[in-house]
């Protein structure tokens, strides 16, 4: 680290650089970097599993991996990507780094709990790696009973324990954010002056707090049932096999919004900054985030339309699902409208952001198709659904994560990334992504079920296209590792505000000093006061910049 920071002014990076000073830090910025290291590791583990899956599916006979191996691969891909990358991705890294900076606080409310969250996360990560090395688990990330409790031949209990422990990390992080945003805002930082990223993290924290415990209980019951042989979901005792699904999706549907809400927050920041224009309909955007967070709890049984729930329940949940689309639609239209009469520059973060809007729109609209009851009867549990949720989670969340990472990279490291390479990576990501997942819509409508290690040879051409796309995507995702790594050492020094953005985080030096601000800032202006006509802007402390 010393070489990286050699020519930088005093900052949180230079304060003290022993190993202990990092491992025992209570500085939210350092913890953000610790989390960044952890989730990057898991992103590549999950990505490795994905690569194997796509390679395996090149051949309809499925001869590359043994069937059990294949089943373990997609399970591991799901578990790792959902709980060890997507859910913590933006909140624990960008959220941890930026929330105190954006609201003008010196740290999060409970710094020690924040550090504990990282340790708990890593413990759960070790358990999941243990599970992977002793032989993995083959239930799919959804752990459906009675398969998981009585018939699965993998290590279900370690996997459930890993996710259970992981939940504590989620809860600690969410709790910290909620309390921090309520209690530590700088003078003048009213709710309606919060950057949308802060709103998004607030919304997501509420979902984390109220949904995660239900998953914890559900998985505890699964583990106990598997261990003891009798349990709550056991049909032999008169238990309902669908009860597990109700409880699981009560968490796991909101969890989808845990993944996408922070991404929406990031994109709102990026679109407004690079269009040099106030975000269109700020209040609508903020309320839409909160509405999504709440309504996301009302729709879970749309995962169960063909599972044997009552017809009335199907109708009610389908209707509610259409309602959750409303706030999402508002957001898409408002991002688009923000471009109107802007002064748009297409730097890498903006490319990622626009990619996000496009892919999220496709993902969202196909979401409406699967929410339509009779269409879902056909496409449920086929590749259509796979494509749909990858458009949201990979096309959406991962794009926004990369966009945000590039945008705040100068703030985090004090260095600029190479713009040219970053744009190439952004464009290749977009193309590779579509090539990977668009064919899966077609496969799904043709009727290819998910989690098949071998399939009808008639479907091969689409699978080959998808695998080809995946290899492009793999390259696009590893590229930033290289040029961002390079920029750590050789990147140009960044000033405090390279993007001429309005948030409080840009008022302090890059990288920020240990307690963020030399003096607590006073907020006098709403966010996003950009003027596209002459390029001037008003920062949130009220200072006017030509």
């Amino acid at each position: 680290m010393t070489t990286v920071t050699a020519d930088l002014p005093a900052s949180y990076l230079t304060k003290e650089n022993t190993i202990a000073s990092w491992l025992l830090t209570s500085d939210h910025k350092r913890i953000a970097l610790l989390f960044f290291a952890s989730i990057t590791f898991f992103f590549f583990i999950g990505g490795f599993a994905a690569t194997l899956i796509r390679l395996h599916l090149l051949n309809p006979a499925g001869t590359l991996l043994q069937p059990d191996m294949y089943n373990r691969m997609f399970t591991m891909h799901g578990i790792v990507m959902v709980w060890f990358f997507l859910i913590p991705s933006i909140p624990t890294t960008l959220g941890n780094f930026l929330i105190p900076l954006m609201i003008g606080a010196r740290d999060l409310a409970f710094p020690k709990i924040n550090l504990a969250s990282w340790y708990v996360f890593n413990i759960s990560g070790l358990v999941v790696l243990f599970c992977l090395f002793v032989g993995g688990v083959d239930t799919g990330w959804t752990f459906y009973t009675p398969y998981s409790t009585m018939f699965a031949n993998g290590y279900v209990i370690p996997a459930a324990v890993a996710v259970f422990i992981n939940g504590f990390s989620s809860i600690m992080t969410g709790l910290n954010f909620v309390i921090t945003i309520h209690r530590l805002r700088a003078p003048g930082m009213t709710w309606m002056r919060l950057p949308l990223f802060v709103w998004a993290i607030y919304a997501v924290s509420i979902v984390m707090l109220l949904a995660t415990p239900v998953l914890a209980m559900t998985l505890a019951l699964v583990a106990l049932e598997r261990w003891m042989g009798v349990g709550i979901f056991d049909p032999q005792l008169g238990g309902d096999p669908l009860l597990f699904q109700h409880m699981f999706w009560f968490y796991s549907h909101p969890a989808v919004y845990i993944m996408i809400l922070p991404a929406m927050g990031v994109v709102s920041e990026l679109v407004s900054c690079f269009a040099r224009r106030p975000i269109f309909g700020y209040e609508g955007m903020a309320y839409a985030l909160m509405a999504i967070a709440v309504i996301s709890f009302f729709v879970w049984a749309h995962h169960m339309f063909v599972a044997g729930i009552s017809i009335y329940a199907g109708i009610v949940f389908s209707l509610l699902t259409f309602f959750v689309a409303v706030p999402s639609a508002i957001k898409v239209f408002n991002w688009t409208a923000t471009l109107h009469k802007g002064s748009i520059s297409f730097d890498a973060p903006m490319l990622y952001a626009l990619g996000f809007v496009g892919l999220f729109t496709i993902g969202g609209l196909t979401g409406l198709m699967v929410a339509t009851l009779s269409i879902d009867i056909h496409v449920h549990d086929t590749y259509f659904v796979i494509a749909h949720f990858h458009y949201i989670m990979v096309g959406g969340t991962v794009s926004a994560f990369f966009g945000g990472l590039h945008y705040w990279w100068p703030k985090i490291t004090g260095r600029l990334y190479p713009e040219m390479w970053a744009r190439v990576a952004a464009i290749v990501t977009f193309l590779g992504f579509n090539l990977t997942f668009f064919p899966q819509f077609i496969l799904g409508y043709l009727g290819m079920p998910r989690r098949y290690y071998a399939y009808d040879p008639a479907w091969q051409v689409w699978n080959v296209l998808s695998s080809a796309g995946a290899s492009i995507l793999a390259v696009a995702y590893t590229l930033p590792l290289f040029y961002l790594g390079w920029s750590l050492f050789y990147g140009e020094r960044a000033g405090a505000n390279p993007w001429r953005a309005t948030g409080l985080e840009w008022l302090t030096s890059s990288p920020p000093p240990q307690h963020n601000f030399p003096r607590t800032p006073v907020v006098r202006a709403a966010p996003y006061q950009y003027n596209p006509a002459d390029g001037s802007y008003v920062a949130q402390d009220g200072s006017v910049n030509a």
Partner: protein
Amino acid sequence: MRSLRPEPQYATLAQQTETAQLGMWTFIATEVMFFGALVFTYFLYRTQYGEQFRLAAQDSKLLLGSINQAILLTSSLTMVMAINFGKEGRQRLLVLLLLATALLGLCFLGVKGYEYLEDYKSSTVPSLNYLLKPGHHPPTELFWVFYFIATGLHAVHLTVGLGLILVLIWMAQRGRFSPNYYSPLEVVGLYWSFVDTVWVFLFAAIYPLGRAAT
């Protein structure tokens, strides 16, 4: 006495205390969801197998359960009194009442352990020695599965609370608390009373399900 400065992210000590309490309330909300999910399974099965649950619950040990609830309610009282004395700077009373609370907690665990033993003797432990009584159907076992998971998790929470109170006693002995600084007392007190509340609901779900001979 230690210097009483708030952590750097807070303006005042009062803000820090208030924020810590709010944090515990948030945690309690998550705990409500955690136990709520379990009670949800109970709610569904009880509506579906009401009679079976009533039969099963007749084997639960009502007397021991009520004694335990009385113990916990009393411990909540001693806890809140301890907090008040702590706030007022009455050191000896604070330590005394914390000790009383811890003792009551231990009593609860003792009674609970004895109750488990009795349950074992009456062959109602699923996966160990569960015996379907004549006239009972398999769903009665669901009741007992719920019983053991719920009371077991509650006991774990109570044990954690007990540990926290021991830490408080240790801190109080060293004179850490004063009318200016008593935040840990308040926070642990919230947790302790919440664990008590959980028991109140579990009691209602397990013991008094209708024992009138019909």
